[in-house]
């Protein structure tokens, strides 16, 4: 967390600037991990739309993979990936 010019935390737990959610790593919460099978993926980007943590990375209209610092393993992407394709599998982090 951000400290003030005297090296103290901001009083009252205030976060004194915006856009800080990106700096908060939630990847450690994950129990299941999404794994992409690029050979099956059609780049429809439904997973990119549906991921509640914006943790699906797309570049040039293509599904690239996952931001594992913020993916918390909810499995929404795997469910929403179209039935004909099913390009995402959830695997145990522990395995």
């Amino acid at each position: 967390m951000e400290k003030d010019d005297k090296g103290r935390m901001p009083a009252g737990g205030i976060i004194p600037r915006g856009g800080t959610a990106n700096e908060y790593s939630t990847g450690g919460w994950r129990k299941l991990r999404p794994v992409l099978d690029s050979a099956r993926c059609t780049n429809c980007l439904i997973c990119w739309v549906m991921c509640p943590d914006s943790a699906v990375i797309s570049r040039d209209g293509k599904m690239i993979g996952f931001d594992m610092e913020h993916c918390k393993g909810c499995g929404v992407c795997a469910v929403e990936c179209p039935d004909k394709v099913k390009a995402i599998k959830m695997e145990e982090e522990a395995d």
Partner: protein
Amino acid sequence: MAIATKGQTGLTGNTAVAYAMKQINPDVFPAYPITPSTAIVEDFAGFVADGAVTSELITVESEHSAMSACIGASAAGARVMTATSAQGLALMWEMLYIASGMRLPIVIANVNRALSAPINIHCDHSDSMGARDSGWIQLYSETVQEAYDNMFMAMRIAEDTNVLLPAMVCFDGFITSHAIENITLVEDADAREFIGQYKPGHSLLNVDNPATYGAMTLQDTYITFKHQQSQAIARAKGVAASVGAEFGKKFGRAYGLFEGYRLEDAEEVIVILNSAAGTTKVAVDELRKQGKKAGVLRPRLFRPFPFEEIAKALSGAKAIACLDRVDSMSGFGGPLFNEVRSALYELDKRPKVMSRIYGLGGRDYKVKDALEVYAELEKTAASGKVETLQKYITL
């Protein structure tokens, strides 16, 4: 208004406090009136309707909402005030801790009234004493004049950048809130100059520099914020002392952390809050005429608790009775007794201390009640023994 002597105005405690709020002209005033503080909200609503203040009056559906609105408005950078009593303060409970934890300098008037059950609308200190650990600064007031003056001082202490904590000004329901007293008002311009402009460090409404209030903190940071808060309320003691002295310089009525009445050479001392201190002083005057060394210590600042200063002031006493207008229901006296007795522990020569609980639910406390306590104190001072450590009086 009653007949006033020159330069003075006859006002009830509620009217005087509402008038102080008018002079402070807060940005936001969430309102949910409750007996015996109702008249504060009524008067203030009148000021809003008459355009005498520019405050936004928010009528809410409960005291929980009133304090929530105070918190939201204060986080938005507004100067915020409200008034309440008893069940009203109790319903604010959850939010009181959030206001202090978020370091929001809200100021409320709490007109002391007994908590139910049994239901009662009259004075005791169970409401504010129940909130004593909520992180709010607490100032207690003996008279209408002091309640009025405390409003300005509370604002200054709360908003001090070394403090930034909410504050409540407490005074006795009906006894002080409804009794008319001739008081000296300060000029509007002087009041404004004394409290100054409030410059919030952050504001929820500042879209150019957005800030988050009330974020979750876990094992890694929660204790750090509580430590900061603890240091801040400890600093409020020094700030209260200097604000009270400055008030005296400016308006001729100086206030300390506590008031000592014929205390310097006193051997038998009653420690007591708010209006009942006045009754006790009358008893002291009678006893002094008889050559007895009776005195009163009346704490003004109860949170933070000025333990060193109070211990020093009581170090010459032989026997002390702490009179609480509330029972902590601990089986071990009231809060004043426990705090004062604990503060005295550091002394090499400790006075004997007893707990007396009086006046609950508005039960009268008379000069004869104080005299009876002093008679007991005299016995203890002579024998060096406390016969009855704790008991109820005025039963």
